[in-house]
């Protein structure tokens, strides 16, 4: 296959997609000459067909849910309903200006308000704001609310956030962005938080704890109520990282576990697309104590009318996280999905995500792979370690991951959580068929056989993709972050 050139390299001076800009040349009106740009920016000069062809071809170089099984742990790569896409892109939603008067926004406001309510009911919190634009921003909002809460009570000594060592990197990073220091909690042999360590860590400096449950180790934190009591007794608050909510949706409610504030990755559990890296939405919910601090705007209903809540309505709010209403289009997609699931659907998501994960885990174990917590149930995901394969065959988690690509499967999350050596974190999600899981198992077994017979084959994978294994060290050392005509060379 021809290596696809950069869009810039398809260009020729003076070429353009002429239908897309005003037909008449530029008049700079009253703009003074010294304000004007002298050199035009270096942008592609291509025809419409060239652009369409280039980006269509580029797209074909991606793995995606729409083309491959994508069991990426902690990422909940489930089917993104096509209806969510087309309905969120109806003209009335796409053309609405974020500052349009409430009278011209009732359709959108109704969706926001109803989704707030559904998330509240399914998680057991008291109120929701949908404005955070991703999980990490939801975390930010939650921890900022914890800070604001302590401050509002004049409790300025609480400077520490506790975070389990298995936590996602956004958790500690968020705590620091909110002005806290981070104290890590170790994990016990069963994958739960070490209770002794927790007890020791708690104290007058404790602002709160960030947890996800089931944890990123793929197991349910069984003593969560006990932990909640301990933290609350110490004067701290509990933050729930809802990235793993798919595992328990409708089955168990973070509010009932004792969490005070929670975010939900709508782009995971509520199946809005990941879009190759975003956008997401990190809806944030709070219990009684924290709900006054939720970020604005939020939607409220008064009689049959909806309106936005602002600073005046919510004086304790931590404020705004985006110029407008967060990722409105993502919220609409999540709303569509939530309505299509309905009451029973929400429960089934967790049931079948869990069924798929436990099936995959059982079968991989039966095939001789090392499941990391064999004594535990998998939640919606689980971990295997390729330590043995790495030691005995010289073929580790990364090699399995890359070779899976050749088999037409996206790799699971590799080397996360950091505490499990040579690990793969595998999350099949509920929308995959049993046959797809069986195919994945067959591929894992086949790769192990290849690794015994011909380790270099696996170490050199992938072989059938648009590129072979990429030199990441060089990428970070000889930084090439921006195309320049000279650097392009012959094409």
């Amino acid at each position, binding site marked *: 296959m021809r*290596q696809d050139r*950069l869009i810039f390299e398809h260009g020729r001076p003076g070429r353009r*997609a002429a239908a897309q*800009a*005003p037909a008449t040349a*530029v008049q700079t009106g009253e*703009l003074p000459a010294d*304000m004007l740009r002298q050199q*035009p920016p270096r*942008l*592609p000069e291509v025809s419409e067909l060239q*652009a369409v062809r280039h980006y269509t071809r*580029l797209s074909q*170089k*991606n*793995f*995606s849910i*729409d083309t491959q099984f994508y069991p*990426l742990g902690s990422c909940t*790569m489930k089917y*993104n309903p096509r*209806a969510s896409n087309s309905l969120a892109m109806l003209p*009335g939603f*796409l*053309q609405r*200006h*974020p500052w*349009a008067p409430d*009278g*011209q926004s009732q359709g959108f406001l109704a969706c926001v308000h109803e989704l707030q309510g559904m998330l509240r*009911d399914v998680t057991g919190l008291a109120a929701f704001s949908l404005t955070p634009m*991703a999980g990490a921003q939801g975390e930010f909002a939650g921890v*900022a609310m914890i800070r604001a809460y302590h401050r509002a009570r004049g409790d300025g000594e609480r400077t520490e956030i506790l975070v389990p060592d298995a936590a996602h990197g956004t958790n500690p*990073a968020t705590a620091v962005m909110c*002005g806290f220091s*981070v104290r890590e909690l170790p994990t016990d042999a069963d994958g739960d938080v070490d209770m002794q360590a927790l007890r020791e860590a708690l104290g007058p400096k404790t602002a709160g704890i960030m947890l996800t449950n089931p944890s990123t180790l793929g197991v*349910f934190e*069984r003593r969560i109520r006990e932990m909640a009591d301990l933290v609350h007794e110490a004067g701290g608050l509990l933050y729930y990282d809802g990235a793993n909510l798919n595992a*328990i949706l409708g*089955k168990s409610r973070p509010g009932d576990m004792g969490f005070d504030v929670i975010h939900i990755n709508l782009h995971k559990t509520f199946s809005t*697309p990941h879009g*190759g890296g975003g*956008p997401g939405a990190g809806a944030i919910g709070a219990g009684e104590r924290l709900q006054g601090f939720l970020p604005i705007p939020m939607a409220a209903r008064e009689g049959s009318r909806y309106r936005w809540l602002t600073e005046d309505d919510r004086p304790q709010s931590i404020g*705004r996280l*985006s*110029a407008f209403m967060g990722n*409105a289009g993502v919220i609409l997609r999540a709303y569509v999905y939530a309505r*299509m699931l*309905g009451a029973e659907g929400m429960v*089934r998501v967790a049931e079948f995500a869990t*069924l798929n994960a436990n099936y995959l885990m059982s079968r991989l174990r039966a095939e001789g792979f090392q499941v990391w917590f064999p004594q535990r*149930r998998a939640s919606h995901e689980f971990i295997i370690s390729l330590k043995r394969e790495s030691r005995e065959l010289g073929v580790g988690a990364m090699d399995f991951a890359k070779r899976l690509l050749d088999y037409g499967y996206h790799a699971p999350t590799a080397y996360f959580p950091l505490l499990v050596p040579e690990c793969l974190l595998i999350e099949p999600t509920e*929308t995959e068929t049993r046959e797809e899981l069986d195919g994945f198992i067959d591929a894992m077994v086949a790769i192990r056989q290849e690794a015994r017979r011909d380790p270099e084959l696996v170490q050199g994978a992938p072989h059938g993709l648009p*590129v072979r294994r990429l*030199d*990441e060290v060089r990428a*970070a050392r000889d*930084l090439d*972050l921006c*195309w320049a005509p000279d650097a392009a060379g012959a094409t």
Partner: protein
Amino acid sequence: MPFIPHTEDDIREMLAAIGVPDLDTLFDEIPAELRAGRLPPLPPALQEMDISRLMQERAARDQTGPCFIGAGAYQHHVPAAVWQLATRGEFYSAYTPYQAEASQGTLQLIYEYQSMMCGLMAMEVSNASLYDGASGLGEAMLMAVRANQKIRSGRILIADSLHPVYRQVAQTVVGNQGVTLESLPLDAASGVIDTDALPPIDDVVAVVIPQPNFFGRLEAVDRLTDWAHAAGALVIGVVNPLAMALLRPPGEWGERGADIACGDGQPLGVPLSSGGPYYGFLCCRRSMVRRMPGRIVGRTVDLDGNPGYTLTLQAREQHIRRSRATSNICTNQGLVVTASTIHMALLGAEGLRRVAARCHEQTRALVQTLCELPGVRPLHQGVCFHERALDLGQPAGPVLERLASRGVMGGYPLGQHDPAQANAVLVCATECITEADIRAYRDALADVLREAA
């Protein structure tokens, strides 16, 4: 069971393979008291047909048509190709390109995006996006604090002509990290920073300069930049990226250029869509790249020496550096960047220039036409890009409401940020606005003003 493919046979056989009798047993590690019983009544499941009809009815209630509101989000023509391509499953339903070999489409596209943004801003490096312009400004400030190692005060000076909501959001983002935001005052009459009355500054990490500013006015960016640099402060330019096709870009401000450029990418191919998803762009000098938040794509080679693309400098990011990361950002606005990249490829420099110039022209025509009405006059003198504040001679809020009920989205009321400007409205006309639209606005406004008088 929408979206769940399991047949009865599948369920039975899979449970047997696991060795449990039923689905519920899979949840037996959850303590009984935490097993949700009956949830509060959620609405029943809707078939796709039913939700489609519901959403169509709702969408039909919301604003469409020509829009004279700007204030941070702008109605522009987006080529049909843009979102038809961006919503292709391979872009739409892919994850972050962590497995580079299986994500060359997205990765090459982001590399192209970074290159385009560098071109548009005349800067050396760009990241792969932040959430939006306002929160991105907060990240830019934190980056400035990290980068300006000589000044540890945490003080950042913000031109009062910056969009007030941007300042609010930035405050939320940086407020817990010892950063203080201070005001660089505005000249009320002209609507810009008066460069003849710049205060002496000292011990300031960075100065934030908008271009065009909240009122659509153009700031004297060269003098402001040089003044800030002279005091050892970094310069953060907050710009409308479309305007940069026509106006001098941050990298060319003053003697040395701005240090950081940020803003909202919405004007580049992103529909208004109720305020999001848009994306925040962030560019800086190459020397600062390791202080930058967010993902960055680099070009490298594969085992065979062929070029390829990968995420790079990940050691800055939360999944590696954890509590010492440059930011907590993980998911960004990838799909919107995908669309925006295609948009820029289709428009090119000349196309964007023409759009920007047409916006400017149409706004001039709009202002001129509206100011023919008695009592309506520009709030500020001097040059604007594609927005201008008008004084209506009476409270703007009710006027805008009455215009809306006539189907005219007339602008943004300035009184909500400054009670002294209760009579003022910020109007905007883009290339989408026709002469007929302007006449319709004028006629409606004439009626409304007459009724009120």
